[in-house]
């Protein structure tokens, strides 16, 4: 079974600074997808960024980028130029590339990010 570990329950960063959230995972599969989801205080969880395991290039979405280290099974999220609206709970998640009964997401415990004005 796959597991996802987020070792930082809480993080804080000054507005406009850069912060990195850590995520490690364990799997015996070679093909899979990794995600970072964000849950703001209003509670609707939204996708921030995704990474396909077969791609060596790290995914980026505007101020959000990942550092994907497949051999180390590490998938960290970097937020640049932090903004007040980035304050949220961030969840790292894993999905097998197989379908038909393997489409569920496996989540970590989350990291609560606080932005300091």
């Amino acid at each position: 079974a796959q597991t996802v570990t987020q070792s930082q329950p809480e993080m804080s960063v000054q507005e406009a600074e850069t912060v990195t959230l850590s995520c490690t995972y364990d799997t015996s599969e070679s093909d899979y997808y990794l995600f970072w989801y964000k849950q703001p205080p209003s509670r609707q969880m939204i996708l921030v960024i995704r990474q396909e395991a077969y791609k060596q290039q790290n995914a980026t979405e505007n101020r959000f980028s990942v550092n994907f280290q497949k051999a180390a099974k590490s998938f960290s999220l970097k937020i640049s130029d932090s903004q007040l609206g980035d304050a949220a709970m961030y969840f790292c998640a894993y999905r097998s590339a197989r379908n038909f009964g393997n489409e569920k997401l496996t989540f970590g415990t989350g990291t609560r990010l606080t932005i300091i004005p």
Partner: protein
Amino acid sequence: EAGVTQFPSHSVIEKGQTVTLRCDPISGHDNLYWYRRVMGKEIKFLLHFVKESKQDESGMPNNRFLAERTGGTYSTLKVQPAELEDSGVYFCASSPRVSPTYEQYFGPGTRLTVT
């Protein structure tokens, strides 16, 4: 386009009572998932519907939980009888049957408190 909706947003019940949670997925999404987050822990998968069929129910904790998706539209999750350890936030998510991004779209969750 309306997002995933869940009802109620909060529910407080006593141990032994029954509660039914409802999820309305995004229109046209064949996949519907239920997840649960117990306070301070990870979000855990409960089950996955494809239209009205249960594709994967490996995460259902026990037979006190019953999920249905009649007609392949909205879904209900019934807990009967509720126990203290059932407290948590129940999330529903949906996605198209074929999705290039594999993104799941989440609802706001139902916070269930069993006293």
